[in-house]
């Protein structure tokens, strides 16, 4: 195993030219990943990036680690086989909103269901970048794109609601424009055992520029972002005087100090509550009524499929002993034919 203490960003940078459009949000994400990886203490040769197809999915080529640029939508399934076979690896899945929520939707929810121990970075630019600008399942209804010249008609998925519908043990949201925060979240995801989904709001300058402006604009971001912290009240706003209150089962924005509201009225975030209902509740908070929640929605430890598989192999080996091929082949009803003559 190679030494991890001397690793630097350069060790994770491959010699391949990065080929996204100038200004694409993918650069910042790449940068964040390359910056945080040396700090995680994982030997470089144990790191594998598996991606599907999309602009974002070219990511593995730029990492000087093991990498597999697979086919559209299937990264989750490939990562599953990889992780189960070789559980010592640190497996990262890079995917886009089309890759993981359109064609790859089923593998995405099933990976989450099984709680495979992989880290999923979902680059959500609400568009198909690579194929030059068709709408995606996360595009807002009405979006005019190459394939919807009169506006799209589909309702859109909330990546978070869907992931939590599948009972994701870890879900977080981050943005391309705040790479330091992104690094923090990535570190959190790495520490989590099980499927860690990070939805990264990413800007496609070419085909969907400004899709996340409401959330990311410097000027208004304090009012439009709710940074979740475990055990802390959900307070936000430039003046940190706004909060989320539970009204029955619905969220409500209150202003602390107005209408008799105090910090005590503000809902306290609990990423570890066993049932995912609170995370689902957060997933329903959207602009413009609510700030966009960022950070870790949910981080609940549960058994992972990969670990269970090996545990089961182990248990049975302990009980039955290491398999003996001879015993296996000669099992069941056997009979002997002797010598060269027949027996009766």
């Amino acid at each position, binding site marked *: 195993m190679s030494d991890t203490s001397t690793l630097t960003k350069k060790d994770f940078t491959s010699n391949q030219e990065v080929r996204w459009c100038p200004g694409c949000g993918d650069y910042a994400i790449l940068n964040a990943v390359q910056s945080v990886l040396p700090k995680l203490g994982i030997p470089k040769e144990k790191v594998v990036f598996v991606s599907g197809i999309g602009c974002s999915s070219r990511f593995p080529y730029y990492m000087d680690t093991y990498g597999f*640029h697979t086919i559209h939508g299937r990264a989750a399934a490939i990562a599953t086989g990889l992780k189960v076979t070789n559980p010592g690896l640190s497996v990262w899945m890079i995917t886009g909103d089309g890759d993981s929520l359109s064609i790859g939707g089923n593998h995405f929810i099933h990976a989450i269901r099984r709680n495979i121990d992989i880290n999923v970075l979902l680059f959500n630019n609400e568009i198909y970048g690579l194929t030059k600008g068709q709408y995606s399942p996360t595009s807002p209804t009405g979006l005019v794109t190459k394939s919807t010249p009169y506006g799209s008609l589909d309702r859109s998925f909330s990546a978070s609601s869907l992931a939590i519908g599948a009972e994701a043990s870890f879900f977080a949201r981050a943005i391309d424009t705040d790479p330091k925060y992104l690094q923090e979240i990535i570190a959190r995801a790495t520490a989590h055992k099980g499927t860690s989904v990070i939805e990264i709001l990413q800007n496609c300058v070419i085909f969907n520029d400004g899709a996340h402006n409401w959330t990311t604009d410097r000027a208004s971001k304090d009012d439009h972002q709710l940074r979740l912290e475990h055990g802390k009240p959900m307070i936000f706003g430039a003046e940190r005087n706004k909060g989320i209150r539970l009204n029955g089962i619905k969220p409500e924005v209150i202003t602390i100090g107005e209408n008799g509201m105090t910090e005590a009225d503000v809902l306290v975030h609990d990423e570890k509550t066993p049932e995912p209902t609170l995370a689902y509740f957060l997933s329903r908070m959207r602009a413009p009524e609510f700030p966009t929640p960022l950070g870790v929605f949910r981080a609940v430890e549960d058994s992972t499929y990969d670990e269970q598989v090996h545990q089961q192999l182990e248990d*049975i080996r302990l009980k039955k002993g290491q398999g003996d091929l001879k015993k296996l082949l*000669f099992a069941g009803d056997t009979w002997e034919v002797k010598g060269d003559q*027949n027996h*009766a």
Partner: protein
Amino acid sequence: MTTTTRVELDRVTIRFAGDSGDGMQLTGTQFTNTSAIVGNDLATFPDFPAEIRAPAGTLPGVSSFQVQIGETDIYTPGDDPDVLVAMNPAALKVNLPVIPKGSTVIVDTASFTRRNLEKAGYDANPLEDGSLEGYHLIEVDLTKLTLNALEGLELDNKAKTRCKNFCALGMMYWMYTRPLEPTKEWIERKFARKAILAEANKLALQAGYNYANTADLMASSFEVKPAQIAPGIYRSISGNQALALGLVAASKQVGLPIFLGTYPITPASDILHELSKYKEYGVITFQAEDEIAAVCAAIGASYGGGLGMTSTSGPGMALKSEAIGLAVKTELPLVIVNVQRAGPSTGMPTKTEQSDLLQSLFARNGESPLCVISCSRPTDCFDVAREATEIAVRFMTPVILLSDGFIANGTGPWKIPDPDALPQIDIHRPSDPEDFKPYQRAEDTLARAWAIPGMPGFEHRIGGLEGQNETGNVSYDPKNHETMSLLRAEKIQRIAQFIPEQEVVGPESGDLLVVSWGGTYGSVYSAVLQAQREGKSVAHAHVRYISPLPRNLGELLQRYKRILVPELNLGQLSKLLQYTYGIKVETLNKIQGQPFKVREIKSTIDALLA
């Protein structure tokens, strides 16, 4: 005990037929196992209805099991049953059309009630209306016989009646002079925790035997002498079981754990069921959300250094095709088992066919060559599974292994090999991280070295986009694409140097060569042997390797005046031979979800040589 004559036979074919609930598969299997133990050679053909249970007593609910036992080499379950055991009117109705006149038909008279006759769509009782004229009809009230035998037991009548299949089996044991002990022992093991059921079934078995022994209605019993079989320890094994064991053996030979990514589908599911039992052998079975995930997970497993495998049938195969293309491009080892069934689309899931050969060769976008090999009979599956794995690892390529429903569910006596005698298979790993190139190739096989995540210094990226020769880096260079396309094709051709030459049984040249592949082996071989015995100039080549074809095959085909290719499809190997060797072949196609009868092939041979 009455005096009965004992007649010696060199082979006999028996079909057990009844309702799905009547336990015919089990009855047939017991008869088979006992016959194997007394040293007969044999082959079986279980034929059961579509996946869901039809209502009891109806035609679609009929389940049958045919077995041929014999003194000399038996390669098929027999064309025409000598005996039909029909447990109810529906079983009679469905099976009678294929029973030749003169055969023996045994029926359970108790089941020929008005209601059952109606369910079977009989207007009149066939036992009474002359329908069975020309058959040797044996009417037995199996139900009563069984109930009488079990009189003392504390079981309700329904449970008792359920034992009547053993009663029928007992009769057959007497008829064909087989011992009861193996079945009695099996019953004891099976019902170890339900002593009363063990007792009941044993009593029923004995009752049937005694009845046949005593009753006048059986004029003679028969003896089928033991076969001339190579010495060794044997067991009876189905194709799917043998295939699963072959994969486990291969895993040991290669020294890598199996990862089977799969999704249930008839008739392939039993491979999953078998392998999921072998956890102490380190076998990982992964029931994926669908066939795409199944093969992708297997690809991920191979990428991660395991033995990635996947098993399916036609419709699932279609779904896997895009991902198999990825394995071709990235040159990862992968074993893909396709247990063929009748198509197109959902088709007839429980029926056999050989119609996925061209799908295996061409069901991918672009030029994406891979290796295809086929099994010929249940016991052969063990070796083919091992070979497929070896080729996959040695040549870093996906290998499609074609089995079919007939082979998968059929059984045969298998001489168990010595696992310690199986050779180790070496893996070609890169050795030097300096100057490591993921697509640098071995000179002989053209295989790239298999570097896996976790190996320090060999970090690299692979993917589905065309890659530069040697480095594998994404490349759109026109000439490079041609180079790589030809290299991928050539690598598969190189496998022909590794596999044995095609053999023929019969004359080295002559009037006719019959070329078969897959599950038709037994019928074709038997037919050719018959023709040879008649002095005809005909040989048999059974092609195991479909892609690449054996290196001598082209030359070999030239040596015969005519080539006959019988297939359970509309002509697929024939197309392959025609375009590969620029020859014309005669075709014999059957597409009925049923195996060939020996005589169907024999009569075609006769016609061609007439």
